[in-house]
């Protein structure tokens, strides 16, 4: 299958050169000639404008307003000042960053290792293990959070039982500030990164066998071949997966609301949970909008940095 890069225009011969005397009229004529194309595009475009484009613009406008039931008023950058001065936001940012910094590298590296191991197996075992690791990904996070909460249960949970094997005292995993966030981090690390495994497997399949042939003639061990051929060639996939999981990790929410509610205290408060609370418990719409814009900017900055760093030394 040949695929065009995003946004590329397929070249058609014969349409390239046309002398246009009256550009406006030509555009109008072309629009009329292609009216059916606009009709095809219409449903999506209307929905997009109404439920995506307008809300996006509105979010930015809202972030400069203080919301009141009868007419909101512009308050300039007050909301943004409030965001950066607020203790809650700083804690949520710190928690989210810690969560991301630990779970993203762990998920991506373990996906790479697992995919590498699956790749050398036969076809049947390959598809078996691929499914086994992907299955938790199709399960709703609500369900996963519910069962982990049960497994972290102080009295009857699986984890404290396993700790008991090693003679370790039971731990109040989610109930104390010192361990709650780490319990969520461990959970995230132990949920296999199914998307990553499948994408790595697909990319590994496209690496040319002749490269390994050459390395083998030079006497490189299997591990060295992996380290010096496979891993570097998988870099575009790695970049994509790091971006994907970072974006996902910055938006961590379901686990929080289902397992800790941000507590104890604010030990597991994350950015999206804070936005949710600000907007839909306290109904401070302007403040919540400003927080979400800041979240967007943080994600954007992270994405750009990762893009630069991981692409630079190709």
């Amino acid at each position: 299958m040949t695929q065009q890069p995003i946004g590329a225009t397929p070249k058609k011969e014969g349409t390239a050169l046309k002398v246009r005397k009256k550009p406006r009229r030509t555009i109008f004529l072309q629009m009329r000639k292609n009216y059916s194309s606009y009709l095809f595009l219409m449903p999506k475009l209307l929905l997009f404008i109404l439920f995506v484009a307008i809300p996006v613009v509105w979010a930015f406008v809202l972030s400069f307003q203080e919301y009141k039931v009868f007419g909101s008023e512009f308050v300039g950058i007050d909301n943004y000042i409030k965001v950066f001065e607020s203790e809650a936001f700083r804690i949520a940012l710190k928690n989210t960053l810690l969560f991301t910094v630990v779970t993203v590298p762990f998920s991506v590296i373990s996906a790479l290792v697992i995919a590498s191991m699956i790749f050398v197996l036969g076809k049947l075992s390959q598809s078996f293990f691929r499914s086994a690791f992907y299955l938790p990904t199709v399960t709703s996070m609500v369900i996963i959070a519910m069962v982990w909460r049960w497994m972290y249960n102080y009295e009857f949970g699986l984890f404290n039982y396993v700790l008991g094997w090693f003679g370790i005292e039971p731990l109040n995993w989610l109930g104390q500030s010192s361990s709650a966030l780490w319990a969520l981090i461990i959970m995230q690390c132990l949920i296999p990164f199914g998307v990553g495994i499948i994408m790595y497997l697909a990319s590994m399949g496209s690496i040319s066998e002749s490269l390994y042939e050459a390395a083998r003639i030079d006497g490189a061990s299997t591990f060295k071949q992996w380290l010096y051929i496979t891993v570097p060639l998988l870099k575009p996939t790695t970049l994509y997966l790091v971006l994907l999981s970072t974006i996902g990790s910055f938006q961590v929410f379901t686990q929080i609301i289902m397992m800790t509610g941000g507590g104890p205290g604010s030990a597991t408060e994350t950015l999206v949970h804070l936005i949710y609370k600000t907007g839909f418990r306290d109904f401070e719409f302007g403040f919540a909008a400003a927080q979400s814009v800041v979240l967007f900017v943080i994600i954007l900055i992270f994405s750009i940095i990762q893009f630069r760093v991981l692409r630079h030394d190709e």
Partner: protein
Amino acid sequence: MKKNSFNGLNKLIIYVLLTIFAVVSLLPLYWVFSTSLQLSSYQSKDMERPISYVDANPPKMYPMGIPLYFEHWSGAREAKKADNIEDEKYHREMMEHIVDNTFSSFKSLFQKHDIGKWFFNSLYISVVVTFGILLIDSMAGYVLAKKKFPGRNLIFWIIISTMMIPGQVTLVPLFMMIRDLELMDTHWALILPDLSMVFGVFLMRQFMYSIPDELLEAARMDGASEWRTFWTVVLPLAKPGLAALGIFTFMNVWNSFLWPIIVLNSAELYTLPVGLKTLQDANLASFKLLMSGATVAAIPMIIVFILFQRYFVKGLTIGGVKE
């Protein structure tokens, strides 16, 4: 990494390690099912009071109803052999109790809670959104890939650039809009924003490029209208792409959580994830009930995954990785 460069021992190590990892990653799901079927109250003749195997320490790793059922079954058989009618009756009753108790939480979920309704809501919303998305996104993707008209690239780039913006940004304005449209606490509040997701346009556009222009040309020569060309030529050719998009849309909508908990208030309108949250809020300690609810929500996705597995793989690798 050539496949045959691994000898027997190395392969064995890989198998063992992968099996351990797979067990760890599937354990939570297993624990959902196991707890949902765990015996929550059992009292045999020689026990002073009933015990619950759900809150057992150490935890029981499988539903205890299974071995106990067989115990009583063989007990009943032996009693029958010995013509001990009373004993046989006791064992038969215990067997019945075990079966009842094992499935009791499912029964109460469907009788006392609205889980049947939640299930239906999730199902019909997911199906409606999936087919809606398939239709409107393939229409949009088709003209964006195959037609030339003024504004095409601009429209595409505007749509795609919003993919970068996390959904939380539009949360508050969307909420205000839905409220002003008086759609709060209706299923429209879920369906309309879901139908506006832009990922499908991008995916279908990528996919439509691979349809040869000659086929479209031929259809036009035969005098087929634009719509007919789309419906009879383009859509059948786009089937693999449609399958991948359909599965991802279904999964996303089925599992969607943050937005539904904001806009839905009435229990009879809940989708499964929202219902599960309220179930958990109201029954924090009844793990058998909670895990049964989780089972009801998990099984459809697992079935969909097993049936359409290859499209999941395809959907992930389309667009991202060059084939």
